[in-house]
């Protein structure tokens, strides 16, 4: 059912990764991603795989959550891998009509697959160990320096927070409206394209109306409680860097340096 959709799912826990400052984690993910694109040989890939597995173990999150994150992207990953295998020129090891797989292609495909899986896993790791609210707060803080060039950091973060908060509500609402219209005999599954698009109107109109109403109510409620933008706003829980955050930062830098080293040395 629609409800089973999970976006940016957070899994409560108390591991070291859960307790890190969100900025350290975002920073760590950025460094990891850069490293992923720096490496270009087997040693480099082993480095990345081992450090990703290490972090996953550290988070104490069951592996199945990462597999669940990869599942929706499986088709894209497989397609990329196949294309890589078929399109790379080099020493041919298998041939059928005009299709041929090369040794280089196979290695490239393996690298590309690993890269994508690591990319998805590491972003999942971030959202699995950080609540959306804290995550957006971290993003806001990191964007703050860019305010001088006109980046509306607070507003962006607030928009993200609200959007994340209302995704489940909207999904629930869609579910309800679909059921109500189905009870009136609406049919969403049969007919040609035009018919199917038309069948969406009885869902979309009530959905937009209630979303707009909700937005209006929310704005009123926020104003009534004295919200006036980011200026001078204080927080219930202040973010602060602790020893472990400096440690994490150090590790991220070391990882990047190591990645560069594998490229240069091997």
């Amino acid at each position, binding site marked *: 059912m629609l409800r089973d959709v999970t976006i940016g799912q957070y899994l409560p826990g108390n591991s070291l990764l859960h307790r890190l400052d969100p900025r350290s984690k975002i920073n760590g993910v950025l460094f990891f991603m850069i490293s992923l694109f720096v490496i270009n040989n087997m040693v480099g890939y082993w480095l990345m795989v081992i450090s990703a597995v290490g972090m996953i173990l550290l988070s104490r999150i069951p592996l199945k959550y990462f597999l669940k994150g990869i599942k929706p992207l499986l088709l894209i990953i497989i397609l990329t891998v196949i294309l890589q295998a078929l399109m790379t020129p080099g020493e041919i090891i298998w041939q059928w009509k005009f299709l041929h797989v090369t040794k280089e292609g196979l290695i490239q495909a393996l690298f590309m697959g690993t890269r994508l899986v690591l990319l998805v896993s590491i972003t999942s790791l971030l959202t699995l160990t950080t609540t959306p609210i804290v995550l957006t707060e971290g993003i806001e803080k990191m964007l703050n320096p860019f305010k001088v060039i006109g980046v509306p950091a607070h507003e962006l973060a607030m928009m993200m927070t609200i959007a994340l908060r209302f995704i489940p509500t909207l999904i629930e609402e869609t579910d309800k409206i679909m059921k109500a219209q189905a*009870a*009136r005999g609406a049919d969403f599954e049969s007919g040609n394209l035009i018919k199917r698009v038309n069948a969406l*109107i*009885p869902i979309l109109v009530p959905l937009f109306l*209630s979303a707009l109403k909700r937005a209006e109510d929310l704005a009123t409620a926020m104003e009534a409680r004295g919200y006036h933008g980011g200026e001078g706003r204080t927080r219930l829980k202040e973010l602060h860097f602790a020893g472990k955050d400096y440690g994490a930062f150090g590790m991220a830098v070391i990882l990047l340096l190591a990645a560069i080293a594998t490229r240069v040395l091997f």
Partner: protein
Amino acid sequence: MPLEVKNVEYTYSPNTPNASVALKGVDLTIDEGEFVGIIGHTGSGKSTLVQLLCGLMEPSEGQILIDGVDINNKETPKDIRKKLRLQVGMVFQYPEHQLFEETVLKDICFGPKNLGFNEEEAKKLAKDAMKKVGLPLKYAEESPFDLSGGQKRRVAIAGVLAMKPKYLILDEPTAGLDPQGREEILAQVQQMQKELGITIILVSHSMDDVARFADRIIVMNKGEKYLEGTPREIFAHDEELISLGLGIPQVTQILKRLQKEGWAVRTDIVELDAAKEEILKAWRARKGGNNHA
């Protein structure tokens, strides 16, 4: 022919960490022409049960039979199952959220058109339905979004009635309405049952409403059918009902209180008029007694 629920179980999001069992081992039969009330604490599975009854969800276990046919049996042709399902009309909690057309009349026509009626027939059905829910025809060409809450609710109910259901399920149809609006809507629902012979299933949190209108009451608790019987039978279990977080009708409460204070009244009465009679009888008896002394 009746509506039957046979040993039905329902689990939301099965095989996931947040699976939740909403119904287990529910058995019941609803006969044609009956007015059945369903009560139960929040989360007891009432809405789940009625959504299964009209085929919006499939039970995880067990069967739902309409006129003796299992509506979820894949061997029965799809269009037959759909036809059966559409004999059960469903009015959701806050049904006004399903309005989408430009005019009231068009919105009410949505259901009949889906049933295959042409423009003319649909309009006729829609107008009949408007009359039945007490919505003046002058609203036919207005936008449903400009109406008041109570009127929107009536448009939504008319939208379901226009499909001429044999069974009509109302899931808390009066939530958020003022007392007068509630009274009117429920009285009209009862009239439909009496005059048109439509079977009514009313889910409600108001003990007074089900006591007054229902022929039979089903009490749900934690996904199971807990009690079943006439209002008098059900509200005799006052202590159990209170322990389930429910209550008993106000008139029954008053009679119980009077009995406690030493008045000779019966306490198995749930209707206002009958209670009035009972109290007057006791009052006269006491006055009569005093005169003799």
